């Protein structure tokens, strides 16, 4: 049974951490400007890159420019939303190696409130709004957009975010289990970057690996395929089942990691 008081209390703690995160962000104003500037530069460059490719060819494996742009924007939406919510994961390893994680574990709230959701990144919120508007711009240029497809797209975006959450929890668990690696989260980012383009363009075994081993196709590509109307229902069901399965696995791995945790350095 859901405990309403517990939810209310967790929401309050989350809100408090988010307020602190906002104050921290604005302590480095130049950093904010450079960070947002850099992110926008990368985004517009890659969109320009797509435009450059389509100025030399009419279609990319059967996808028009608008359709390829939907894939690109869907990747950006999920990737950016995950960064907005889970920025604290990027700072987890120093917490482990310094022994600071002990201080998180002894607090009377779930550690995910601090190490997963405790550092909402407001700089990513700005870019997220921009990406959403540009996605809508491209979506409304599609000749066959329907309300059902749009609803299903939102559902699968959420599903993609659930898969992203599971990956972030796995990264946290690995942060405890393998302390010698300091860039696990960047490995996740690099692997997901393949979802910028439709996976159909890649040959086997790459396509297989990024559909079934690292489910980037289900996470990043499927929502875009739904929006442009090129999908099958079976895959939608598989994606939803897979997302919850992966989330369950990530929680089990986390519990195992916490059991193995040895306070050190603090």
């Amino acid at each position, binding site marked *: 049974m859901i405990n309403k008081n517990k939810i209310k209390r967790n929401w309050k703690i989350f809100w408090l951490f988010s307020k602190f995160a906002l104050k921290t962000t604005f302590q*480095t104003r*130049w*950093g904010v*400007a*450079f*960070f947002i*500037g*850099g992110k926008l*530069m*990368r985004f517009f*460059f*890659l969109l320009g*890159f797509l435009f*450059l*490719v389509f100025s*030399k*060819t009419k279609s*990319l*494996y059967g996808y028009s420019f608008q359709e390829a742009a939907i894939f690109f924007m869907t990747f950006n939406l999920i990737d950016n939303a995950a960064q907005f919510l889970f920025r604290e994961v990027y700072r987890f390893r120093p917490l482990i190696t310094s022994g600071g994680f002990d201080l998180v574990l002894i607090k009377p709230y779930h550690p995910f409130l601090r190490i997963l959701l405790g550092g909402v990144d407001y700089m990513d919120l700005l870019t997220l709004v921009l990406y959403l508007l540009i996605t809508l711009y491209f979506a409304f240029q599609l000749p066959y957009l329907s309300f059902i497809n749009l609803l299903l797209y939102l559902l699968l975006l959420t599903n993609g975010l659930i898969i992203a959450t599971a990956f972030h929890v796995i990264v946290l668990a690995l942060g405890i289990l*393998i302390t*010698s*690696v*300091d*860039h*696990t989260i*960047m*490995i996740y980012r*690099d*692997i997901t*970057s*393949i979802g*910028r*383009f439709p996976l159909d*363009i*890649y*040959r086997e075994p*790459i396509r297989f690996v990024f559909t079934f081993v690292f489910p980037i196709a289900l996470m990043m590509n499927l929502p875009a395929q739904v929006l442009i109307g090129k999908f099958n229902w079976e895959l939608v069901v598989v994606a939803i089942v897979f997302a919850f399965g992966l989330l369950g696995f990530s929680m089990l791995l986390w519990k195992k990691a916490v059991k193995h945790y040895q306070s050190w350095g603090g």
Partner: protein
Amino acid sequence: MNKYLTIFNVTIKEYFAYRLSFVLWRFRTLINLIVIFFFWFAVSAKYTNFAGYSQPALLSYILYASLISDFVIGTRLGDIAAEINNGNIINIILKPIGFFNYYFARDLADKFINIVFSFGEILIVAYIARISLSTPQNLILFVLFFLCGLMISYYMNLIIAFLGFWTTESWAPRFIFTILISLLSGNFFPLDMLPKTLYQIALLTPIPYLFFLPTKIILGRIDNYLILEAMMAFFWLLISRSIAHFIWKKGNKSFSFWGR
């Protein structure tokens, strides 16, 4: 000379102390290469000539650019800003070694170990894709442009790192710098695919001289502006070197070396 060789060896040993971390770093590089390589593989498959490139030429460009960029861009200079901020830099300055040479030796070790792995990776990708790589050409010219690119990259990285003398936020300009390099230096596509005016504007900046022009030259794609490009490469080398030395002197004077 021996002391710099020792620094070189010690830096390589540092990598082997964190073997798993290094292997995963190379895995990341391989993923990035696969993403862009097979993207172009698919795009150029239907064309005998795509924006002036045949498929083998375009794919050879991507692989050669990856190999050369690993050497030119790979760096340990990002550590300097943190060393300035926490005061550790004084430990290096007080030693009887040249600061610039010390970091150059560390940088070379980083580049050396990266290129060894990078070479293996491009052979794997070329084998999977069953493509024959273009034979290297114009080797003397290539070495000249390559050395210029290498030194420009070294001095540009130093300039960014030295901002640590005045701010603890030098990560921010480095973030912009890394993005600029990763996007505009020719990792994603050969820059001469750009509309002509944009390409010419790009040639006025130091970024294409890092590894785009060396790659173009080794693939035998020399254009009519070679002398002008050589002059620009040399110009950017001199400018970046002068700025790096100037900022180093200014930084030393204004910095109080706190923390030690």
